[in-house]
């Protein structure tokens, strides 16, 4: 149920310490605009998959990206943590600002960016060589050594956040691969949360899961909304309606419509949005 109304979104407040400080700060306290996407286009080789997408993604809310297969949903969120550029022959133009800072700037290290902007993938994919505990710690271990007591605390906190702690606390040393699909996906979410990101990107996180596991992940998204900015790609419109406050509809790489989820689903402004959400195509 979408009981809470979303406050209107203002343009990105300038990042503290950035060059654009002259711009007056908005006088009322709003949720921080976490992402400001400006004229983003993306290509794989010759094929253009995103066309001039401009959009604001507010902080501490869930934004759902919907659209038919191949509309550029995944590419869009993969541009938000610079995963897009890992694909050979991938190109991009336009800007993505994270709290006012251009994430594609020369001075930005994509490795550090990805620690702030975590990602959960379509298929649950715990690291096969690692136990449950090591999977949670993987992101931290990649980058530094941890003391055991600290590590235990991180593992418990992340697993509790991912609502998995009760189920696995007595078998942390067992393989992450041995869990059920839904548990594996929550383990992957815990793994992403353990590095303490600000943003969580989810690329169809439930498409490989059964309805019960899906419901658990959705509950989890609700719980995480207060602390993280979440962007979720989904092909399931009911899911978008259930979990998000804002919805973005992409079609053939173009932004067709975006706005509050309630409004977009009940009173779409664009004919194509209406056709899509009423199931006329897609």
């Amino acid at each position, binding site marked *: 149920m979408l009981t809470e109304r979303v406050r209107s979104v203002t343009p990105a407040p300038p990042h503290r310490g950035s060059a654009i400080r002259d711009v007056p700060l908005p006088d009322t306290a709003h949720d921080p605009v976490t992402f400001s996407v400006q004229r983003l286009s993306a290509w794989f080789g010759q094929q253009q998959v995103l066309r001039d997408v401009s959009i604001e993604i507010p902080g501490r809310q869930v934004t759902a990206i919907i659209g038919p297969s191949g509309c550029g949903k995944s590419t869009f969120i993969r541009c938000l*943590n610079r*995963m897009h550029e*890992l694909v*050979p022959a991938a190109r991009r133009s336009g800007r993505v600002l994270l709290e006012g800072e251009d994430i594609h700037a020369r001075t930005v290290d994509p*490795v*550090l960016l*990805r*620690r702030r902007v*975590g*990602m959960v*993938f379509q*298929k649950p*994919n715990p*690291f*096969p*060589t*690692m*136990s449950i505990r090591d999977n949670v710690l*993987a*992101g931290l*271990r*990649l*980058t530094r050594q941890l003391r055991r007591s600290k590590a235990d605390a991180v593992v418990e906190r992340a697993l509790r956040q991912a609502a998995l702690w009760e189920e696995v606390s007595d078998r942390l040393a*067992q*393989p*992450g*691969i*041995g869990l059920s699909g839904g548990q594996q996906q929550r383990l*992957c979410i815990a*793994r*992403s949360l353990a*590095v303490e990101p600000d943003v969580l990107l989810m690329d169809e996180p439930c498409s490989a899961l059964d309805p019960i596991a899906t419901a658990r992940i959705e509950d989890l998204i609700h719980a995480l909304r207060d602390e993280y900015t979440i962007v979720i790609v989904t092909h399931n419109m009911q899911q978008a309606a259930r979990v998000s406050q804002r919805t973005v509809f992409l079609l053939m790489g173009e932004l067709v419509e975006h706005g509050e989820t309630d409004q977009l689903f009940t009173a779409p402004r664009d004919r194509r949005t209406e056709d899509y959400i009423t199931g006329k195509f897609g």
Partner: protein
Amino acid sequence: MSSTPRRDSVRNRRLLERAFVALCLLAVLLPLGLLALLIGRVLVDAGGRLSWGFLTSYPSRRAAQAGILPGLVGSLYLTGLTATIALPLGVGAAVYLEEYGRRGRLAHLIEINIANLAGVPSIIYGLLGLELFVRTVGMERSLLAGACTMALLILPIVIMASREALRTVPDTLRESAFALGGSHWQVVRQVVLPLAFPGILTGSILAVSRAIGEAAPLIVVGALTYIAFLPRGINSPFTVLPIQIFNWVSRPQEAFMVNAAAGIVVLLLTLLLLNGLAIYLRNRMQKRRYW
């Protein structure tokens, strides 16, 4: 609606099925049988010569007193040295080509060339080793020159097997590791390599086994055949089991044939032992994997 298949066509299909299985079984049994015959024959021939004394004696003019010690020790040294040189180079090259190098025409060309190199006759590597290591670099006819030559010989196999193993690691795992904020090296070191490791080892074991059995390149590089001492360090002259065997086989006296047979048994056992050890180590490391 499709009509039900006629009875004789079903029978035909079953017959075909059986014939195919029989053919496959034959393809398994024939080489196995030949191999068993060969090994049995060698064991019978080697008969009385296999003893502790044979393992611990130096070659001699008198067949009954000749032993295989320098060859055995030389083979062990050479294998160890070859693996030390070839494996880091080969795995490193594979990691670069798979994980870092750009995919393009050049990469494709390199790939084809490596595959071709794996098919070059070993004697050619011997000639290359002679010219390059023995003469140009001036290593003389030493253990090191032999090991370098052997390393060249097995490098293409190590590289190809390692690349194959790295390719089996799903990209989704690499992506996840990148998404967690890993640098390229961290992703390779902590996620990709541990997963590919057993495959890399399997390929390496096969490659090193090949080096144990090779004689041709070493004849050219100059692994002397009569050596009455053990190699003292990597600059020492040396011989290896296959060359000692080759030497005995080429003698006219019947008694040396027995020695050769015994030498073959020792070579086979050495191979088996080294492979067994490598596989044991691999499986022990694999226990930490969960699929």
